[in-house]
């Protein structure tokens, strides 16, 4: 059966991004992924140059290339940029680029969110980078421990750059994680059940889950910290009930998962490209999946192993020590399974396999020193010495940079349509590998010999000279290797030999056409195997001839199937948005808002907040009315699927729960801060003379409960096809919501001034947090109300109402924890 002539052109037109500068409005996953990766390598280059400055300064004792001020900015920015602006985004970019191709999807389910994530990342990164340009870069270390980074000891704008820039990039990370989670769960090709899902998707799923739980503590910490710096709310000030160690907990609650957030996707890339060059399916696929899940969870339970010397109870140290060494088991399984895949296969030793070798050697060494530092007494020796510098670079460069470079080489033909050079690849690899070890191996010794980290100079005569000189020489070699490797790739992008389809003989879907067309798949295939191109004879021909799902754009729509989470049964038809300026404009407004906070121009910040609100509402407002949309589309000959938009099980529904999980992690971090300070901070319990329960605080509970009930009644009305009831109950919900907020604001005025004590500050953050969520829910409900009056919604199509109801309920549930913390806790503190 042949497809109609002109269908392919129509498909191309439906998926094309505009040319020229208007390409900035593109939302397709491949331009976005490529922009992510290129931007990440831009920041990588700058952070790498900073590393060379560090090694130049430390090459000999008493060196004066950099003064202390410059050095502190340089090492802080090196770490901050490498971790926040390179390591995570480059892998998010790789996933954005590759995942839909591997999963047999035409795009991510929320293309605009993906684009928004990129612009947030770019603007956050540029804000951070601008600090370096004006010479006021953060200088308190990438972990910015207070009180050194507090207003008293860091009065300048430096630390604010960190807090604002990093938070912006973190928001991008969370947005990307929501997008990727839903993509993996809901947009796989029909038939690609969990058991057939490629390993990279498994690893990204685990990673996205970790980002959703691991980033919020830092986002919360940064908000608290900025409140302390800007308005003197004392969360970390010991004299007023704060505790600097609270910051360390929040930072490492993020910081340790972060290491695995960087490592897991990189291993996922390896587990995908190693089988190709070994010509052997990944050995022990199931174990690898179990290990990815295992590492993801275990990594959440060992944050305090960065804090052994802080003086937390020895019992707790033993816990974290035990949990830390446990990670060695899933890590060991992954490393050995990768070796075994090569060892069982018929490997072709091209550059990617060399980088896999580099990963194995370097990461194993980093893992072994990791087991060492997980042991408390040894860590008390190694902590904050050059030993840890060596350890973390073995883990991060071995565990992430080497796999990423191998992956670049491997997927270069898919991205550019041209073959990378094996010569520059191999020369580059050996320079990188040898240079890396010359650089970092000696630092193990330097650290044990007592040289601290983060020192801009060191005296002669303590036995640190030869190793530092050697490290500096190795860093130059490493830089040269990078130059040759990346230069070779850049050259290949323009001058390389053109590739035919699937040059490596790979088994996964991204190689059906090389490079893939803008719509990825002429038709979305039905998947029956983990390596469909190896096992499903005739698959390529079928896809290229349009046999499968949605070969026809049906009037220029961007159609793609959405499937069920476990078995990937086609469930509905996604109708994805095309190019739009909304993500860029919204992110730019957020950037203005953050810059306003940064320079303490609060009028600008408030204007930015209002503009951001408008921009989001404009973004969320649907471009077509429900009755203009088809109910169903023909997904395959003879198979009609409902349109996802407004459908009660659309991927947006999944996204709601994923988002609420991340938000709950944010709120849990806030509650943790409260209980932590209560349990451990000096000046607690606060000196409360008399506790009273203000009547507005209690009365407010009534409209809150009423508003939730009204929201649910609104949903019940539309289920019964009662649009008037929907409008009426939404109006009631909004009205009671406003009453609640007014009473809430009134009650807040009776609370103590936030700068008095950490408890007062936390009480204010808690009620504002809850009020903000209710405002978001009210905005959703307001939009639903407006749409209902325009004739939208039906009993089987009212997702916006369902989401508003759930979010409203969530906002109210926040107060179940919030009300006792804000209004009842003082009764416990009365002395």
């Amino acid at each position, binding site marked *: 059966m042949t497809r109609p002539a002109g269908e392919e052109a129509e498909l191309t037109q439906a998926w094309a991004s505009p040319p020229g500068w208007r390409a900035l409005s593109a939302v397709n996953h491949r331009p976005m992924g490529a922009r992510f990766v290129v931007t990440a390598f831009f920041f990588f280059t700058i952070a790498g140059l900073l590393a060379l400055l560090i090694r130049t300064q430390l090459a000999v004792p008493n060196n004066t290339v950099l003064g202390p001020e410059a050095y502190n900015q340089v090492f802080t920015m090196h770490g901050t940029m490498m971790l926040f602006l390179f390591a995570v985004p480059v892998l998010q970019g790789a996933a954005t680029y590759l995942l839909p191709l591997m999963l047999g999807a035409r795009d991510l389910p929320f293309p605009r969110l993906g684009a928004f994530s990129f612009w947030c990342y770019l603007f956050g990164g540029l804000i951070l980078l601008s600090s370096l340009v004006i010479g006021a870069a953060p200088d*308190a270390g990438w972990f910015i421990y207070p009180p050194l980074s507090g207003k008293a000891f860091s009065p300048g704008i430096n630390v604010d750059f960190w807090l604002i820039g990093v938070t912006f990039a973190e928001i991008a990370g969370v947005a990307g994680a929501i997008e990727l989670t839903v993509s993996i769960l809901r947009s796989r090709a029909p038939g690609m059940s969990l058991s057939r899902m490629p390993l990279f998707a498994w690893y990204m799923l685990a990673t996205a889950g970790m980002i959703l739980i691991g980033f919020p503590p830092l986002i919360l910490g940064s908000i608290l910290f900025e409140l302390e710096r800007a308005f003197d709310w004392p969360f970390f000030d010991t004299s007023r009930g704060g505790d600097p160690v609270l910051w360390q907990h929040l930072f490492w609650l993020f910081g340790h998962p972060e290491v695995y957030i960087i490592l897991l996707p990189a291993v996922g890339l390896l587990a995908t490209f190693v089988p190709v060059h070994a010509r052997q399916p990944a050995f022990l696929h199931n174990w690898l999946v179990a290990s990815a899940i295992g590492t993801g969870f275990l990594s959440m339970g060992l944050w305090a192993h960065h804090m052994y010397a802080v003086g937390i109870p020895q019992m707790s140290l033993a816990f974290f020590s035990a949990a830390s060494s446990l990670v060695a088991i899933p890590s060991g399984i992954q490393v050995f399974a990768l070796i075994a895949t090569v060892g*069982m296969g018929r490997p072709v030793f091209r550059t990617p396999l060399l980088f896999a070798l580099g990963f194995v050697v370097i990461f194993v060494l980093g893992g072994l020193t990791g*087991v060492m530092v997980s042991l*408390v*007494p040894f860590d008390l020796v190694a902590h904050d010495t050059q030993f840890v510098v060596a350890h973390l670079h073995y883990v991060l460069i071995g565990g992430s940079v080497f796999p990423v470079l191998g992956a670049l080489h491997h997927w270069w033909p898919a991205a550019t349509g041209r073959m990378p050079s094996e010569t520059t690849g191999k020369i580059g690899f050996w320079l990188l590998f040898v240079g890396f070890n010359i650089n970092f191996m000696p630092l193990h010794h330097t650290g*044990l010999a007592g040289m601290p980290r983060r020192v801009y100079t060191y005296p002669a005569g*303590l036995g640190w000279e*030869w190793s530092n000189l050697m490290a500096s020489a190795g860093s130059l070699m490493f830089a040269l290797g990078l130059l040759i490797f990346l230069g070779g790739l850049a050259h290949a992008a323009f001058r390389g030999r053109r590739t035919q389809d699937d040059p490596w003989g790979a088994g996964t879907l991204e190689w059906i056409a090389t490079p893939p067309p803008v719509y990825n798949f002429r038709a979305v295939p039905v998947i029956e195997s983990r390596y469909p191109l190896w096992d499903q004879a005739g698959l390529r021909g079928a896809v290229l001839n349009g046999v499968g799902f949605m070969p026809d754009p049906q009037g220029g729509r961007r159609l793609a199937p959405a499937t069920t989470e476990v078995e990937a049964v086609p469930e509905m038809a996604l109708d994805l948005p095309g190019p739009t300026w909304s993500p860029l404009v919204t992110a730019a407004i957020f950037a203005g808002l953050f810059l306003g906070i940064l320079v303490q121009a609060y009028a600008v910040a408030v204007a930015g907040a209002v503009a951001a609100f408008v921009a989001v509402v404009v973004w969320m407002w649907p471009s077509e009315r429900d009755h203009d949309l088809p109910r169903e589309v023909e997904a395959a000959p003879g198979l009609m699927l409902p349109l996802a938009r407004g459908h009660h099980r659309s991927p947006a529904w999944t996204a709601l729960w994923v988002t609420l999980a991340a938000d709950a992690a944010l709120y849990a971090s806030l509650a943790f801060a409260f209980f932590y300070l209560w349990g451990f901070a000096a000046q607690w319990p606060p000196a409360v003379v008399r506790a009273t329960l203000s009547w507005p605080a209690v009365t407010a509970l009534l409209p809150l409960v009423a508003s939730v009930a009204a929201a649910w009644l609104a949903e019940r009305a539309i289920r019964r096809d009662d649009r008037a009831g929907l409008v009426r109950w939404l109006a009631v919900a909004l009205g009671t919501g406003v009453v609640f907020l007014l009473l809430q604001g009134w009650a807040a005025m009776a609370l103590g001034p936030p700068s008095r004590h950490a408890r007062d500050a936390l009480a204010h953050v808690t009620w504002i947090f809850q009020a903000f969520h209710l405002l978001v829910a009210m905005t959703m409900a307001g939009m639903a109300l407006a749409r209902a009056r325009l004739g939208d919604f039906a009993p089987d199509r009212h997702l916006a109402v369902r989401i508003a109801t759930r979010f409203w309920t969530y906002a109210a549930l926040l107060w179940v924890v919030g009300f006792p913390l804000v209004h009842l806790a003082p009764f416990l503190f009365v002395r």
Partner: protein
Amino acid sequence: MRLLPLLVLLLVAGCGGDQSSLDPTGPNARDTLWLFKLTLWVSVIVCAMVALAVVQAWLLPRFRLGARPTLWMVAGGGVVLPAIVLPLLLVASLRIPWPFAEEREGAFTIDVVAWQFWWEFRYPNPVPGGPPVVTANELHIPVGVPVRFRLLTEDVIHSFWIPTLGGKVDMIPGRTNYALLRADAPGEFRGACFEFCGLQHANMAFTVRALPQAEWQDWMWREARPAAEPEGDEARKGREIFTAAGCGSCHAVRGHGAEGATAPDLTHLASRRTIGAGILPNTRSSLTGWIAATQQIKPGANMPSYNGLTGPQLHALAAYLEGLR
């Protein structure tokens, strides 16, 4: 090759004591070094196993393993080995004493107060009931006795580490941490701050002298005495300059009316070997240079450069300080 003589020179130059955890002088450092060697041997075995697997996989393309032996390799290397070794290492690490010490343990206690960017040591007065004996940047401890350090900070977070004696413990505002360390043999070591604390984190070292009991007692009595009266006209003039320039508002010189408490106690400055928290030898020229150009030598230190003083004034001041034995 032309670098070699330079390197040798640098190695010989030396600067006041050993700062290496690889040369333990105390029980905690020695146990920890043992633990490190244990993990090192475990690592060697793991590396050998990985190396075998890697050689088979990457270098012997003709020699392929079947699924079953490979499965055993992954299970053995990834599960069985760590499942045996890790608990053993964990138990070993729990068995050796950690350097933390509790509040109520009745050991001899020295207060260590960290300041940006120097160290203050407060000893109990050998005369019962006397005020604590305060000194800076040079720690004297008796050999063979467990010493409990009460770790405090006056500003940001610092970390107290004497690598030859044992593990490090942080000093955190609002908290009091304790470390319990012992030196087994007399000697001179070097300790430093190991938590990034700002501009001069790199130059925040101190000297540790472990002395035999009797010698330590003598030192303690000497240290408890007030400062010596200045001898000679220059030193007396120096004392006047010291007072006039307001040095006493930060520094203390016991018995000379200077009672500042936010900078190193100078009562027995001349007995110390280095100044500026371990960065300069204690000589006339370093003293004058330091006073006149603190911010050039240690930019970011909390002492301003007294560059308004003339050469003779600086020398007089240095003469006074050199008399504070």
